[in-house]
């Protein structure tokens, strides 16, 4: 949706569900799935308390129509009077990356010792990793005659920052239960 933004986003899923009947009364159900989501974004986006959208979007919507995008010499214009330059924010920002990967296994053994009575043993293990990097990078803006440089909106040169987030999550779930169902009634 935003021009100039990094365009490297994808999600893929793989799944194999395999069931095997050892006999009429013993059945194994197995499920294996892989999930991967790579997302990249304009780095350093922040937003106001009143809106979940980043300032960049707000600046684009409420940008002053009488402010140019570029200065006379082609630099990014320093939007005077407290306004930002959304194009500069989009073009100059660093790329933030967000990666989520998951592996899920699920095995279920179903034994039916008697008609209508099922014993279930189930094991489910979910493994997920998150690897995110967000970067706030300064970008200069210029007055119309390039007489001075200002830093605005994203970060000042002395306030560049990197936010890294790494997480590994494992959920192990073991369940055993029995369930019964009455035989089907035949309606007369």
């Amino acid at each position, binding site marked *: *949706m*935003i*021009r100039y*933004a990094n*365009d490297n*986003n*994808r*999600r*893929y*899923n*793989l*799944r*194999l*569900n*395999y*069931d095997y*009947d050892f006999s009429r009364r013993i059945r194994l*159900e197995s*499920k294996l*799935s892989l*999930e991967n*989501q790579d*997302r990249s974004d304009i780095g350093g*986006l922040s937003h106001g308390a*009143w809106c*979940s*959208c980043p300032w*960049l*979007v707000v*600046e*684009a*919507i*409420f*940008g*002053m*129509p*009488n402010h*140019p*995008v570029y200065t006379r010499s082609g630099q990014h214009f320093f939007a*005077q*009077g407290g306004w930002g330059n*959304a*194009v500069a924010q*989009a073009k100059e920002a660093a790329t933030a990356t*967000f990666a*989520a990967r*998951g592996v*899920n296994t*699920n095995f279920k053994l179903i034994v039916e010792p008697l008609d209508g009575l099922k014993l*279930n043993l*189930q094991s*489910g293990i*979910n493994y997920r990793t998150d690897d995110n990097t967000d970067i706030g990078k300064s970008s200069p803006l210029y*007055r*119309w005659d390039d007489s*001075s440089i200002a830093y605005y909106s994203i970060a000042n040169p002395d306030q560049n920052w990197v936010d890294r987030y790494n997480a590994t999550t494992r959920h192990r*779930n073991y*369940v055993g*239960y029995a*369930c019964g169902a009455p035989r089907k009634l035949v309606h007369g």
Partner: protein
Amino acid sequence: MLRRPLSLAFDSTPLKQALAEISRQAGLSLVYADDVLPAATLVNLRADHIAVAAALMDVLLDAGVDVVFTRDGRATLVKRPPGPAVQLGSIAGTVTAAGGGTPLPRATITVTGTRLTAEADAAGRYSISSVPVGTHRVRARMLGYAAADTSVVVEEGKETVVDFQLKAQAIELEAVVAVGYGEKRRENLTGAVASIGSEPLESRPITNTLAAIQGVIPGVVVERSGGQPGVEDFSLDLRGASSTNGGNSPLVLIDGVPGKLELLNPADIETISVLKDAAASIYGARAADGVLLVTTKKGTRGATRFTYSTNAAITKLTGMMDTPNNYQMAIMDNEANIHNGAAPMYTPDLLNRVRIGDPTPIPHPIYGSSGRMLFFTNTDWRKAVFENGFERKHTLTASGGGQNSSYYLSGDLFRPGRRDSICQRQ
């Protein structure tokens, strides 16, 4: 007056009584002699907001009378003059189940486009008399069986024989619904359990499971507060707000194991059951906000069957308000100054330069001392920043199996193109 809406509920009501009620509600004066109306005629009609004319037509259809309206708002019922004699015949036959030939008592047989109808007796026999001569379509239906219809030619004074054989048809009651630690037939369900199959998920171009169930399952509220792929910030709500500072999200079990829906491929889902009432309590305290049971697809035994589906979509910001251009803003700036008792900043010459988009700015008439400039060109910031997005989704599945095994294999690639946050006010 004839269009005045009435609310009527006649169940085997005598015609005279029905006319009195219509007359009362419509404020219409009905005049008729007692011998005009057939005394034994009973009326069945239930309708809200039915027009007076339509109500009269319905109750008098088979009474053999016409309504004559006078200019003073009265209506008179008169006997319909005898028309040419209608040639009649009859239709009769049996309704049986296909295959075994078992009679289907209480099957309904109707002559399409008429009020002629009959119900099969214990032996599956039926008979419809007083059928106008000509070609008709006759339809037989019965709960649990597929309806059948056929074309018949009725001849004067003769009985046309039409036998129906209805094929058994599975109905929704046979469906199996996942419940806590097991399954139940839908016909045996007594709790508040909603369920959906894969159809509503596959029939919409949805790339995310949570978006797929939005507005599909009764009682499940799915809200999104962002449009950025991957961070839509979906919230799932099943039992309403039960905590002011904690989560209200239901427990999500994917094939019996707690999981998250965000990354699940919607094409892999076979069914989703939602346990809203005490049935959820079997999962303990985790289920305080209800339970969503997601069951993924199983393989279908037999030869391998491949399916491929793809979806391409253009995404566009919508609901954006209009913003002024430079000239409109200059006019508003002048109006603001006038209302404020100040002189308009944009003189006619400056306004003209804005109108023609003069590329040469001047020092700002008011804030020029601080280095600000007054520009006459126009910038459409939204055009400069936003563009339409493009997304693609490909799904390939293979399903099959042998005598003792079955498999379901799927791969899915979702590739959203140029995009970023979509603003949504909270």
